[in-house]
C-alpha cells in the first residue's frame, strides 16, 4: 500500500489551498500532519484519503455523528458497508445481542462502556469524539485517516487513545495540533506552511525548533 502525490495542487473547488505537493505515504507509516490553522492540513488529509485504496477508516473533525441515533448505532455505522441493505435495516430497528456485544467491546476501549443506548445528542464533546474513535476502531482496515481525533480530550487520555487507534491500523495519517503529542505517538511529521509542504521528516531526531517554525 502506498499513497503518492506528485507536484499536485490541492484545494476546495477552484480555490487552491496547497500547491506543488509531493508526498508519499508508505505502509507502516504513522504520519502527523501539522501546521497553523488554515495551513491546509484537512485538505491534504482529504486528498490522501481519496487516493487510498482498500478498506480505510476515518475520524472526521466534526465527528460525523448522527445526533438522532444512539451511541450503538453511531459506532456500528463503521460496519454498514460489510452487510446488505436488509441486514442493515434490521440492525437499525433491532440490533442483535452479538452486534451489541461487539460494540460494547470497542466502547470499553475508549472508556464509554455501558453508554451504548444513550443518544449521541446527549453526550459531551469529549464523549462524542470517543464515539467517533470507537467507530473507526470497529471499522478497522489498512489505513486510518483522523482529523484532530483527540482534540477534546486531556493529553494523557488523548495519548492512550491515539496509541490504541494507531496500534490497530498498519498505516495512520492524522492531523494533530499538539506538538508534544505528535512527537510521542507519530513516526513521521509532515509540516505545512505557506501553501506547501515545508517539513517532512521522521520524528526520531527531529528538532523541536524546526517543528515550532511551522507555527511562527
Amino acid at each position, binding site marked *: 500500500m502506498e499513497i503518492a502525490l506528485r507536484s499536485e495542487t490541492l484545494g476546495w473547488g477552484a480555490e487552491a489551498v496547497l500547491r506543488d505537493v509531493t508526498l508519499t505515504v508508505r505502509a507502516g507509516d504513522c504520519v502527523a500532519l501539522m501546521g497553523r490553522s488554515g495551513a491546509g492540513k484537512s485538505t491534504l488529509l482529504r486528498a490522501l*484519503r481519496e487516493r487510498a485504496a482498500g478498506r480505510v477508516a*476515518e475520524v*472526521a473533525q466534526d465527528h*460525523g455523528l*448522527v*445526533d438522532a441515533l444512539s451511541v450503538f448505532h453511531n459506532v456500528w*455505522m463503521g460496519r*454498514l458497508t460489510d452487510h446488505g441493505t436488509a441486514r442493515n435495516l434490521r440492525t*437499525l430497528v433491532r440490533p442483535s445481542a452479538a452486534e451489541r456485544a461487539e460494540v460494547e467491546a470497542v466502547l470499553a476501549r475508549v472508556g464509554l462502556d455501558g453508554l451504548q443506548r444513550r443518544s449521541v445528542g446527549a453526550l459531551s464533546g469529549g464523549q462524542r469524539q470517543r464515539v467517533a474513535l470507537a467507530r473507526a476502531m470497529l471499522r478497522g482496515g489498512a489505513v486510518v485517516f483522523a482529523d484532530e481525533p483527540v482534540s477534546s480530550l486531556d493529553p494523557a487520555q488523548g495519548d492512550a487513545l491515539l496509541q490504541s487507534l494507531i496500534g490497530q491500523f498498519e498505516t495512520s495519517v492524522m492531523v494533530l495540533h499538539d506538538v508534544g503529542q505528535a512527537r510521542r505517538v507519530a513516526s513521521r511529521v509532515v509540516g505545512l506552511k505557506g501553501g506547501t509542504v515545508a517539513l517532512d521528516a521522521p520524528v526520531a531526531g527531529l528538532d523541536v525548533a524546526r517543528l515550532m517554525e511551522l507555527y511562527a
Partner: protein
Amino acid sequence: MRLRRRDVGLGFLLVTLAAFLVADLGAARPDPWATLTAIGRGVIAPDFSDLGGLARATGLTLAFAFCGVAFGAVFGLLLAPFYRLAPVRWLCVSVRAVHELFWALLLLNVTGLSPLTGVLAIGLPYAGIFAKVFAEYMEEARDPLPPGVGGVAALLWARLPGCLPQMRTYTLYRLECGLRSSAVLGFVGLPTLGFQLETYFRQAEYGAAAACLLVFLALILPMRRWMIWRLAPAYLAVSVVALSWVSHPPMGDGALLRFLRDVVPAPLRTGAEWGPWLGRVFAEQATPGTAQTLIVSQLALGGAAVLAAVAFPLIVPRVVGRWGAVLGHGVLVVVRSLPEYMLAFVFLQILGPSLLPAVLALALHNGAIIAHLMGRQAEGLRLRADAPRGLTLAGWDLMPRLSGNFVALCLYRWEIIVRESAIVGLLGVATLGFWIQTNVQELRLDRVLMLLLVTIGITLGIDALSRRLRAAMGAGAGLRIEGTRGQVVRTT
C-alpha cells in the same frame, strides 16, 4: 415545557388512529375500476379536439394567475414596511386565512362572474402572504447605511435592494401557486382549466379531461423556463387585456350594498331570535363541519408524513442512483404540481363520495411537497467519506439526521392541510367547505361569514399549536419555512 420528538410523534399517531376509527372512508361507488379504466383510457389517448376551448381556458388560467399574483405582490410590497404595526398584521393574517376558493365564493356575490372576482380571489390572500414574507426579508436584509439615515431612505437604498433576489425567487414560487389557484377557481365557475376539467368529467369525456390535465402540467412544469422577468410587464399587459375581453353576466345594481346587508347576522337584521340561528349555524353546521375537517386533515397529515418518509430517499442519487433519482423527481413534481383540489375532484369521481378521496388527494399532494423539500435537504447534507449507499444510507443517516426537519415540515404543512381540508368540502365532502357552500346556495351570507370565521379560527389555532409544538421540541421557534420554500432556516 420541553417535549421529546418521539412523544409528539406518538401523540400524532394516536390522534390519527382515532380519526381513522371515526372516519367514514367507505366508498359508495359500486365499481371504481370501471371509472378508473375509462380514465386510464383517456390518459393514454387524450382528446385535444376542443382546441379552441382548451386554448381559451389555458390563456385565461395564465391571465388570472398573472393579474392575481401581481395584485398580491404589489399590495404585499406596499404593506410589508408596515407589517410591524398590529392592525396591518391582523389585516394580513385575516385575508390570508381565507382560502382563494372561499374568497371567490364570497366575491361572487359582489362582483359576480366578472374577471375581477378571480383576480381578487387570488390577489387578496396572496397580498397577505406576500406582506408577511417580504416583511421578513426586509427585516433580515442588511442595512450598511450609517446610523441616522431615515427609515424610508434606508428602506429604498439598502433593505429593498438587499432582498430583491429573494423576493424574485419567492414571487416566482407564488406564481406557481397562483397557476394552481387560478386553475382551481374554474370549479366555482370562472373560465379557467378547472372549469373545463369539471365539465368534461361530468360528461364522462375522460380523453378531453386528460387533455386538460396534460395542458396544465405542460404549463406549470416548465414555468421557470418561460417566466422571463424582462417579459413580465408584457405578460401582465396581455393578461389584463385578455381578462377585460371576457364577457360575463352583469350584476344588478347595488350588489355590494346588498352583500354588506346580507352578511349581518339574521337576528340583527330581521329581529329573529338568536337561539335558533345560533343553534343552526354552530350546533348543526359548524360543529360537525369542524369535526370532519379535523378528521380529514389528521388522516391526510398522517398519510403525507408516511408518504414523505418513504418517498424522499427516492430522489437522492446516493440512494437510488442517478436515473432512479430522475424518475423519483419526475413522479414527485407531477404529483405536487397538480392542485390538491383537482386531485380530490378526480379521486371523488373514481372512489365515490366519502372522506377517502379528499384524504388521498391531500396526503399525496402534501406528501410529495414534504418529500421534495426533504430530498433537497438530504442532497445538501455533508456525509462521511465512508457513508453507505442505498436504503442503508436512507435509514441510518438521512432519516435520523433530517428527523427534526421532517417534524418541522410536517407541522408546517399541518395548518395548510387543515385549510385545504375545509376547502375540499366544496366538492361535497362534509367538511366546513360543504356547509359554507350550502349556505352560499341558499344565499344565507350571514351564516357563510360565521362559518368562515370558524374556519379562520381553526386555522389560526392549528398554526399556534404547531408553533408551540415546534418550540417545545426545540425545533426552533424562529424556524422560518414559508419564505424559504421549505429550506428550513434557523433565524435564531
